[in-house]
């Protein structure tokens, strides 16, 4: 088994190449001019809010929907209007989509039976697939005798047994409870590393996305907003939407006061904040957004020195979340900022309404222009 990392130097074509893809349902635009390239052997996650178009994209790649315009290339070949079974893709569905009247073995082997494989060959492949998903003891059970997690594993086995090299997962863990979902995430990741094929996984759960993904694409309102490595998406979001959707970011809106090349001064709620422009082109007076992750924000005394990396506010309340505590601060313009700290003492909390200063490191604040 080869390790499933994308190898950029190999002449292998990308597993999926989506070009200018649009999908309309009457007046409703489900996907708008989407372009994305997914490398062979990559674990790729489509992340976004419900109804944003990520499932539509996945299903269009799988051949369940026809695009209104644009095209999909799989392994370098345009798949045009090929039906799902003629594509190198296979799907793991959200619901426990198994044949209720067949045993685990029959469920997994049915695709091969339809493909006309010999019985002994089918049995061999099914055994191997079930072993890979850890279900070897459950071969004779019917789906209703399995737990939700086991049912999803049967789906996985049914998919990988087909030897197609792109696996599409449509919210595969959505129906599982939180703990099981965490365990299954890791299992999915390990399974992908084991079999080395491309996984494309749709989810609205960012923790799930972070756990499994090599790369993440954010999809909202039919647009592919941003695409990048999982860590970069979290630490260094480019777009306002990404910052507001991934992690827990404080979003500040303001206007550019002065822009001088690599950095800019932004007017926010009566304060002048300095921010790196990241090479973005900004003009004086342009409305912009700033984001700072809540865990990068600290609370200081009200009389601390004012600088370009802090802002005045009034304490609202603290929310105890177990591992962390969130401190809520209201800025003069009404914006609420959150400072999240790991701390288990309740001592020394400011009183509600107490004035204070919120501070951060210069490198933690990011500028978004769109």
């Amino acid at each position: 088994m080869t390790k499933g990392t994308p190898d950029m130097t190999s002449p292998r074509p990308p597993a999926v190449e989506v070009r200018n893809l649009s999908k309309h349902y009457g007046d409703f635009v489900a996907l708008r001019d989407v372009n994305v390239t997914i490398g062979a052997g990559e674990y790729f996650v489509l992340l976004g809010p419900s109804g944003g178009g990520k499932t539509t994209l996945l299903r269009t790649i799988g051949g369940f929907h026809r695009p209104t315009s644009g095209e999909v290339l799989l392994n370098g070949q345009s798949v045009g209007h090929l039906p799902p079974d003629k594509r190198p893709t296979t799907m793991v569905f959200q619901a426990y989509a198994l044949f209720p009247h067949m045993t685990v073995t029959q469920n997994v082997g049915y695709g091969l039976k339809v493909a006309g494989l010999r019985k002994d060959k089918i049995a061999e492949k099914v055994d191997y697939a079930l072993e890979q998903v850890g279900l070897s003891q459950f071969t004779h059970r019917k789906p209703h005798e399995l737990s939700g997690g086991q049912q999803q594993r049967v789906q996985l086995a049914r998919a990988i047994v087909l030897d197609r090299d792109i696996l599409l997962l449509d919210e595969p863990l959505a129906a599982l409870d939180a703990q099981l979902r965490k365990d299954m995430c890791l299992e999915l990741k390990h399974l992908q590393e084991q079999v080395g094929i491309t996984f494309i996984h749709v989810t609205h759960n960012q923790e799930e996305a972070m756990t499994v993904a090599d790369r993440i694409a954010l999809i909202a309102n039919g647009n592919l907003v941003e695409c990048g490595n999982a860590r970069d998406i979290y630490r260094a979001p480019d777009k306002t939407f990404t910052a507001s959707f991934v992690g827990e970011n404080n979003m500040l809106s303001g206007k550019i006061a002065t822009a001088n090349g690599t950095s800019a001064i932004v007017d926010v709620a009566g304060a002048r904040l300095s921010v790196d422009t990241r090479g973005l082109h900004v003009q004086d007076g342009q409305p912009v957004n700033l984001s700072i992750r809540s865990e990068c924000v600290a609370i200081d005394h009200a009389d601390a020195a004012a600088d370009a990396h802090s802002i005045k506010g009034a304490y609202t309340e603290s929310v105890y979340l177990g591992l962390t505590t969130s401190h809520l601060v209201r800025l003069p313009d009404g914006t609420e900022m959150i400072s999240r700290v790991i701390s288990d003492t309740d001592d020394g909390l400011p009183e509600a309404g107490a004035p204070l200063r919120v501070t951060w490191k210069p490198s933690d604040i990011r500028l978004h222009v769109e």
Partner: protein
Amino acid sequence: MASPTTDVTDGGTLPVGTPPVTPWRDRLTPWVFRAPLVFMVMFFAIPMALTVVFSVFERTMFWMEPGFTLFSYENFFFSARLINFLDSMKYSLIAVAICFVLGFPIAVFIRKSVPQVAQHRVILLFILPFMVSEIIRVFALRPVLQRNGLVNSTLMDLGLIDEPITALLYSHTGVVIGEVLSFLPFIVFAGFLAMEAVPKYIFEVCDDLGVGPWRRFKDVILPLAAPGIFAGSVFIFVNGLGVALLPNILGGAGAVNAGLIATQAITALDFPLAMAVSAIMMATLMTLLWIGHKLFDLTKILSPLS
């Protein structure tokens, strides 16, 4: 309307020793469920049992008298009646098959392609024929099927036939057409309910695995929908045997069914024979249901997805 004797709540203490008086309303409630049971026992179960008892009674001029004779059964099994009965079974089966071929695809189509909110409305359309009395519906077939009826004159005008097909009416064909007309909605209903046992996602899984239409039907839909389909088919089959109206209006020499045989026996004042025919029909139905239950577990019909 509470009677004063039930007013014991004011003090909060019940008098010791005297049992609390149950309001008449509470005592009446169980009868909401018992009354239909009593009705069904009195007017269904007992008469059905009596059917078997009466079938072995001696025939008299105008009624029957207690006794034990298998004469009626002999009369049924060793006469043309048995042939007619077996024939009507055969043609009932044909009607079931035609109903299934015409009706089940409709049920699949409604489940699969009609939006969820509209499904029940579409199904409702199949109830419309029942708004017209069955006699009228069946009788209206005569001018369509008869010698110079709609079918024959159309075919002759088109030059497809030279002389009218007389086998359409007063024959087994006529009865089968009438049965399909009368019972088609039932296979649509039964099929619609049966398709509830076939989850919708199955079709997408089949797309993904490349399962063709025939395999999809044979391997997936049929096994899952079998209990419902069987129940619908038994219903049609038994009605094909029992509804005397159809062969009475559309049938002819030899084209009778068990229902008509019984009716004719009653007309001839041979009550034990009529009872024997009924008992035989009941036995047939029960055997069918027993076989069906052994094969498909018919209790599944009402709990399709559990």
